[in-house]
């Protein structure tokens, strides 16, 4: 019983800070504009579902600023038939 209580205390003190640090980082953080491009189809394919929908950030952990760019590039690639709009 005592051990359980100490664990709970940790989650409010130092433990919570550690858990924040171990949160997954944005996978596109180090990609610059030239890499994150509509021509980089291999990279973009990782961020669309099997039915070709754009995946939400809660699944992919992409940061908000990069997601904005990513969505724009996926839509450009779709316009040029490099990526599909829908797949059956």
């Amino acid at each position, binding site marked *: 019983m005592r051990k359980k209580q100490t664990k709970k205390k940790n989650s409010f003190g130092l433990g919570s800070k550690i858990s924040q640090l171990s949160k997954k980082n944005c996978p596109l953080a180090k990609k610059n504009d030239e890499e994150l*491009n509509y021509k*980089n*189809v291999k990279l973009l394919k990782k961020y669309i579902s099997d039915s070709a929908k754009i995946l939400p950030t809660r699944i992919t952990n992409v940061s908000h600023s990069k997601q904005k760019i990513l969505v724009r590039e996926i839509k450009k690639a*779709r316009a040029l*038939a*490099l990526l599909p*709009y829908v797949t059956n």
Partner: protein
Amino acid sequence: MNIYEHTYIAAPEANKKDIENIEKKIEDILNKSSGKIHKTEDWGLRNLAYPIKKNNKGYYRNLYLEGNKDTIKEIENFEKFDEKVIKYLSIKLKKLPKEDSELLKEKV
């Protein structure tokens, strides 16, 4: 003068001559308004993700142009009525990219 990135897809039945003709016409339009082509990339015959005008394949060509907004409009207007061009996309850029695109590397 702005820098544009212009990509067009030619129909799969187009010959080398057809593509040369398209390229010549684009150059003519650019020469009229003192624009120029910085770089061309040939991505070759690729499968399309969805059929466009009943074609399942297409020749991709990518150009980096310098010109005014009117010149790019004129190029797009020409491609709209050309039967050999299925689809096109032009994008305004801030500066020219230094490296080749991933699609060109993929081909080789």
